[in-house]
């Protein structure tokens, strides 16, 4: 036997389905105390419990978050006491109205529970009112079938018997009527067969026994023939009716399985809660002919409200809402056929999983009709478990998605912080180093050194300023930047970027290699200029002293390409994609070539915002790197053509 861990509350469960109420009460008590609980059933060899009942009870215990345990022993109280001691439980809950008296464990005396475990609290729970039986359905009027089948078949049998009466023995004629009864039984069920049997007996008596055309009977043998016939016809009719019922049931169960499968398939494909709610209400309405509504508590609301209904939203009375609220908070069904609110028209069934109540299904029940919900309660129960499982699945998927999103955001934030701190600190390191050298080592510095250090302070301050600009751009990009497009010449963009870099360009050679025939671009000029500044600055930083940087442009099909070649170390093939994404992949900010942190990421964002793309390849002759910004080519406005 497994040793339970940390169980504080035990509940002794008798082996009847009625114990469900006791289990619910125990779960509530344990929840209120914040304790773990376990349901224990003691099976005695003399009275084994049916496996179906155990299965149902254990399912309920698991649903309410408890553990389930079955013990075997001669005496209930001995086993309970022993188990309570071993599991170090501090309370034992017993139902007052256990339906079988014998299940009441002995409380006092030599082998009673009270004396056996002195440290145990024993809680006796009052019985809940037993579930009221479904009201009796009214007498169902016979259908037309049930009239036509017996009347028709008996009439037919009478005609045949009349025709063959001369050639046949009187006793054999009864077989013809018996055939009519059996046909009726198979065709219209047992009730019709009974009618047919009675009609046949009368007809047989009236037309064939002497004196003919009277219901009187003289001969004893004829009397016994009719009596025997009636007996055989009744039995045969019942058997035939049973056959008919079984056939119908078989057809129906095939139909049920198909319905269940269809529902299960629809539920498993449902992407969200709203779709599942919809499937629930339409399934119940369509397959069970019950108007249905789904109620749940939105947010912190205490009273559930209708979130889906079929057909159409019902007008629920205050009492119905009260019943739904009760079911929601007690996780128990209410309405017709249950102990609570049984006079209501709506039956409320809560959908429950381990985390609590997921919602309440309300079904409008017509209690004058022997509806399917009363004939197949187990099937309906299975259906509700399917619903609950589907809702749980969706809830889990949503929770997982939220967790992933949060994790992603966290990573992005960490990457941004490390990137920003690197981008700001690198120029600051030069500024602080140079300035502190100027202050502390002034005596040993030549005039030229001083000038160079001041130059460094100035240049790095400008670089810092550009980084801050980048940061601001980044924030704007994050908040949905609006692109104000206008027609602009590619050359102007290049020149603008070169002007902005200014002093930083002094150590490289810039070659302007774009032609005047480049088409106009329809872009937000400031953004594309910033994209150019970012790749240009990168190139300058990585170029050797007096290295050459070539700016060029050309059209390529429906795109305009702005190119920048440098003579720096180049970008290894494996890194050509990730240098633009580094910031997003959470890599270290200061590793690898073009370690400008945000710069290239921002460049790509800006170009992509225009429907373009930026890539890096090996430079001409395999030396250095080439950055290519490609932007979609657009037809210039009409006015331009006229001006030409």
């Amino acid at each position, binding site marked *: 036997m497994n040793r339970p861990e940390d169980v504080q509350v035990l509940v002794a469960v008798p082996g009847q389905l009625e114990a469900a109420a006791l289990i619910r009460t125990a779960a509530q008590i344990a929840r209120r105390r914040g304790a773990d609980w376990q349901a224990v059933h003691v099976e005695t060899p003399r009275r084994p419990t049916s496996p179906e009942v155990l299965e149902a009870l254990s399912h309920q215990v698991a649903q309410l978050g408890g553990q389930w345990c079955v013990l075997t022993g001669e005496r209930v109280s001995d086993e309970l006491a022993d188990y309570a001691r071993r599991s170090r439980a501090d309370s034992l809950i017993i139902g007052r109205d256990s339906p079988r008296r014998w299940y009441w464990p002995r409380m006092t005396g030599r082998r009673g529970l009270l004396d056996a475990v002195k440290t145990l609290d024993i809680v006796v729970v009052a019985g809940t009112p037993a579930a009221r039986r479904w009201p009796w359905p009214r007498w169902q009027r016979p259908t037309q079938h049930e009239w036509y089948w017996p009347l028709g078949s008996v009439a037919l049998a009478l005609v045949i018997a009349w025709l063959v009466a001369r050639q046949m023995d009187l006793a054999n004629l009864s077989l013809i009527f018996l055939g009519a009864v059996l046909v009726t039984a198979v065709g219209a069920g047992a009730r019709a067969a009974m009618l047919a049997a009675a009609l046949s007996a009368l007809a047989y008596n009236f037309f064939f026994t002497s004196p003919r055309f009277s219901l009187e009977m003289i001969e004893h043998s004829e009397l016994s023939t009719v009596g025997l016939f009636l007996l055989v016809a009744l039995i045969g009719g019942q058997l035939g009716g049973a056959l008919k019922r079984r056939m119908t049931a078989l057809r129906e169960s095939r139909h049920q399985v198909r319905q269940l499968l269809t529902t299960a398939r629809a539920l498993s494909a449902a992407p969200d809660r709203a779709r599942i709610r919809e499937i629930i209400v339409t399934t119940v309405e369509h397959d069970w002919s019950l108007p249905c509504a789904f109620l749940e508590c939105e947010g912190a609301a205490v009273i559930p409200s209708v979130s889906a209904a079929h057909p159409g939203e019902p007008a629920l009375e205050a009492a119905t809402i009260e019943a739904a609220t009760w079911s929601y908070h007690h996780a128990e069904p209410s309405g017709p056929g249950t102990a609570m609110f049984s006079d209501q028209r709506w039956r409320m069934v809560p959908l429950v999983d381990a985390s609590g109540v997921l919602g309440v299904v309300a079904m409008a029940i017509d209690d004058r009709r022997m509806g399917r919900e009363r004939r197949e309660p187990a099937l309906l129960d299975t259906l509700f478990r399917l619903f609950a499982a589907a809702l749980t699945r969706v809830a889990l998927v949503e929770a997982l998605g939220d967790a992933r999103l949060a994790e992603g955001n966290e990573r992005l934030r960490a990457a941004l912080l490390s990137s920003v*701190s*690197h981008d700001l*600190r*690198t*120029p*600051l*390191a*030069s*500024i*602080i*180093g*140079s300035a*502190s*050298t100027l202050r*502390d*080592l002034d005596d*040993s*510095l*030549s005039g030229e*050194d001083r000038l*160079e*250090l001041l130059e*460094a302070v100035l*240049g*790095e301050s400008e670089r810092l300023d550009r980084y801050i600009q980048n940061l601001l751009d980044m924030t704007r990009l994050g908040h949905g930047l609006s692109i104000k497009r206008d027609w602009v010449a590619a050359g102007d963009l290049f020149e603008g970027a070169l002007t902005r870099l200014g002093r930083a360009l002094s150590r490289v050679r810039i070659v302007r290699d774009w032609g005047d025939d480049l088409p106009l671009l329809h872009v937000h000029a400031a953004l594309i200029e910033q994209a150019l500044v970012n790749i240009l600055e990168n190139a300058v*930083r*990585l170029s050797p002293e007096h290295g050459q940087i070539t700016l060029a442009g050309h059209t390529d099909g429906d795109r305009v390409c702005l190119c920048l070649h440098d003579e720096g*170390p180049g970008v290894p093939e494996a890194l050509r994609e990730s240098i633009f994404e580094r910031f997003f992949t959470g890599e*270290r*900010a*200061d*590793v*690898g*070539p073009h*370690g400008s942190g945000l710069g290239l990421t921002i460049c790509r964002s800006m170009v992509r915002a225009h429907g373009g793309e930026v890539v890096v390849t090996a430079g001409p002759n395999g030396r250095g790197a080439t950055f290519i910004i490609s932007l979609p080519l657009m037809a210039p406005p009409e006015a331009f053509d006229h001006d030409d």
Partner: protein
Amino acid sequence: MTTDAPRVLIIDDEREIRRFLRISLGSQGFAIVEAATGREGIELAREAAFDLILLDLGLPDMDGQEVLKSLHWQCRAPVIVVSVREGEEEKVAALDAGAIDYVTKPFGIRELLARIRVALRAGASVEAAPAQVLAGEIRIDLAQRRVSRSGEELHLTPREYAFLARLAQTPGRIVTGRQLLIELWGPVFEHNTHYLRILVSRLRQKLGDDPRTPSLIQTEAGIGYRLMVEGDTAA
């Protein structure tokens, strides 16, 4: 220290950093060699002997930690890591990989010069481990395994002595907590940093070192300890 100018190798991809280091260290009489990539730095260190290497961790071609490992294998020059990375793990990893010190960017030139002086001394002492180390009033005699304060002999437990001797072997240089735990207790105790904290507080008491402003055993929070010496190590 050699008679001619100490040779310093700077491995950093930031040109502006190299420029100001070249000017400032050059003005203090150091001979500077620059490398912009890790590979170039390793190459240079292999070809010529340096008295000191300043190494940035974020290099374009390989990570500084990797550079540190290969430098450690092939040359004896002390390495000071100069990086914007300020996490404790980075510092500990660099020191464990053989760096002698760690300076976080941005830094003032005076701090760097002080660290360079300590590193140069430590680099010199690696070749001949000192027999005696003087730190304030404390004399640590490594040959005779004795510790005295103002001439008065102190009674240390074997582990306290081992701790002090380990720091004294490399005066002025950080020894990481992990290293100390492995050497003094064993590899299993690598993470039991509270052992060190207890041992150091007892040791400071015996040495007469004020725990609030320790002048002998300095704690580098989260990283390790170093023994502060007055500058002269007696051979």
